């Protein structure tokens, strides 16, 4: 069983903000998914919108991006709303090159993301 990553949850407006830290790679992607899972269940039509605050994510690998793909797919199936905010410059480039900027709504700031999903 993977350990659960601390996502530092907090609320802002109607949204739940999750702020993972460090790297999401081969070593930590399972932990990230496990930590995200209970919050995804509530991210549904009429439920709590999610904003992933990536300001403290230094790097995300393909395995981490796959975890985000699965999350986006689940939320879409539940008619929920999810967005990503405050990407570091490296992670922003990774999103663009991998085309994950077409999978997620990406906002420059958490405030903008909260407005976007509310």
């Amino acid at each position: 069983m993977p350990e659960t990553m601390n996502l530092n949850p907090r609320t802002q407006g109607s949204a739940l903000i999750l702020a993972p830290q460090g790297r999401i790679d081969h070593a930590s992607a399972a932990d990230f998914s496990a930590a995200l899972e209970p919050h995804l269940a509530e991210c549904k039509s009429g439920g709590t919108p999610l904003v992933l605050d990536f300001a403290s994510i230094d790097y995300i690998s393909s395995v981490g991006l796959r975890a985000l793909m699965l999350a986006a797919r689940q939320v879409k199936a539940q008619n929920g709303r999810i967005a990503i905010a405050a990407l570091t410059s490296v992670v922003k480039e990774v999103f663009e090159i991998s085309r994950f900027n077409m999978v997620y709504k990406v906002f420059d700031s958490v405030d903008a993301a909260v407005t976007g999903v509310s």
Partner: protein
Amino acid sequence: MKVRFWGTRGSIPVSLTAPDIRKKLVAALEGAAGRNLDTRQQIENYIDQELGFDISGTFGGHSSCVEIDIQGTEHVICDMGSGARPLGIDMMARFGPSGQTYHVFMSHLHMDHMMGFPFFTPIYIPGNRFVIHGCHSGIEEAFRRQQSAPGFPVDFFMLGAKIEFDQMKPGETYEIADLRVTAKLQHHGGDSYGYRFEHDGKTMIYSTDSEHKLDDIADTQSFIEFFRNADLVIFDAMYSLAEAISIKADWGHSSNIVGVELCQLAGAKRFCMFHHEPSHDDEKIASTLAETRRFEEITRFDQPVEVISAYDGLEITL
């Protein structure tokens, strides 16, 4: 060891159209405005040094066919896509029409990897010998069926060359044509196999038509070991990562992102994007190459991995 690319396109051959050529000419002539290009040398310098390859050249449209040249007495080819037609002509020009032995390693039996075989002229000439190596149990039947009525006018039994089939087992290492060869099972519809070729201290990986399931850690690790310290990894980078794990999941192909990551983890020296998506034009492939080089740069954690994009006519010396 030299590696020559005769076909680099995925799924189906494509060809430049008249509008494609016109677009390149307009871009080249626009860029030439105001330059002093009165001599052939000045023109060639402009083409070679100022224009991008997407304007001055083309990545090409033949389907998979790669030649490995170790200056041996026998010839080695990976896959027989449509690039095999010009390769056959070139082989006859270099070595003569007859008396040659050709070793062909088949990644799998989909038509884009076989369609060039009936157009590889040496198969019709007595005195030539072909050994077709592969791990699929139905490999001989597939070649015979491709060249039978009503699909093709010359039946397989009419071929002049001697044709043999060699059933390989993945994971076992063979000595063939002065190469150490090991095959590996890959995820693809009907299965595909990658090959690790080693000779004189150099290693080349041919891994096309291979999907990588990112949740399978053991499988990922097995590919890292298969690519370990390779001098060149020819890799199926047909899609973006987002496509490969969403709408095109289970289509049997991979992405530039996963290719770079595997090469970084394996300590490979050179990553070669291969099996280009047929809908991508030269501009798109060139921009993907630039992005992939940038991705390698920002994610580098040890030695750099040189990133290149295969094109028909590319020759690499290892």
